[in-house]
């Protein structure tokens, strides 16, 4: 998973006063955990809790959706 750019992290916090740095930390950690778990294994309660929590954090961090994010622009950095 591509790392989050520092400017993106700062903008998430700037645009969402209800979001805390700890929320982004947890959100990013849970996203990364997804890929460290063999997806061919049967769904576990832990995985279901993770996805549920990710949905909660997504709504908190991106109440208007993530349309303004762009991980795709820096080729011309």
């Amino acid at each position, binding site marked *: *998973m591509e*790392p989050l750019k*520092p400017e993106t992290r700062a903008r998430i916090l700037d645009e969402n006063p209800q979001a805390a740095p700890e929320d982004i*930390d947890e959100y990013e*950690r849970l996203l990364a955990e997804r890929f460290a778990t063999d*997806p061919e294994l049967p769904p576990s309660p832990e995985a279901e809790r993770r996805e549920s929590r990710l949905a909660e954090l*997504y709504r908190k961090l991106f109440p208007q959706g993530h349309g303004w994010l762009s991980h795709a*622009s820096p080729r011309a950095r």
Partner: protein
Amino acid sequence: VLAVHSVYFTDCPMPTVRVIRPGDAGKPDPFTICVISNPALESPWKSSQFQADPITNDEAGFDLCVRFVEQALFGLLPEQAEPFLSDPGIAPGVRLVSLFVSGLEAGDVNSLVAEDGVSDLLIARRARFRPFLERYGLIADVAYAISQSDSHTRPSAWPATDDDSGPGAAFTMDGATFHHRHRCIVPGTVAQHIASVPLTALHEFGHALSSYSNGLIVDLYEDGPPAVNNRHGRPIPERFAVYDGIALASDRKRDGLGYPTGWRSFHCELNDPSFPALMDNYWLAHDGIPEHCQHDVVTRRFLLDRVRAKLAR
């Protein structure tokens, strides 16, 4: 580009297969990396709702992306410090193939990438890759699907599911025996955006070449699970691990970034201690040039040993 070869199929509209690097032509199944234009997006992930991926109308953009993937993997990007597959004992054996295809039905069997419902991540639909490639006579060890999604731009990757019933090269990690398997059941898969920074292809390859049963390479910018390149413990010990009989030191400073308070994770010694590891947050390179970042010691050794084992099959 060492060779270009186009093949046209009558049952699928306009597919173009290009052999960018032939690899070891003397072998029936040389170690192979495939880069594919994603025909259809599942949106959101696991919804069974599909739409055509806009990349199917941009063959020139796809070809440019393939070039960037090749440059990143073989250490050819401007300013790139990580040599990776450029090792003269490795590079000639690696086969790199691109597949551009358009006009396929936007359905389950043609969808290699999904748009995550709770992030801007592109997610590889890993189980679809092998049967999709087989339709074109291709087998991949690692495969990239390139998307031009309008809304999701962040790449991600799944490690491979090894064929643990088959042969491989044994290795030890802290006394336990594992194998760099010659073949996989599910290839390592990457979902990447057409406009992603090229270095990201190298970062994602680190995940995709690793294995759920024989060693994971995880992101180092999170307090992640124990893996080949990540250990847990405080205080941080001097020794990170013993890989195949070689004692490797810990990176006690995390390349100057520092380990956040409360983390359990610590990492392996770096090849260049002045820059973050490639599996860490390379955007934080102190000079602002991510291409100056290299893999840490255990990550590079593990990944290149895995490639060598597959080259030897």
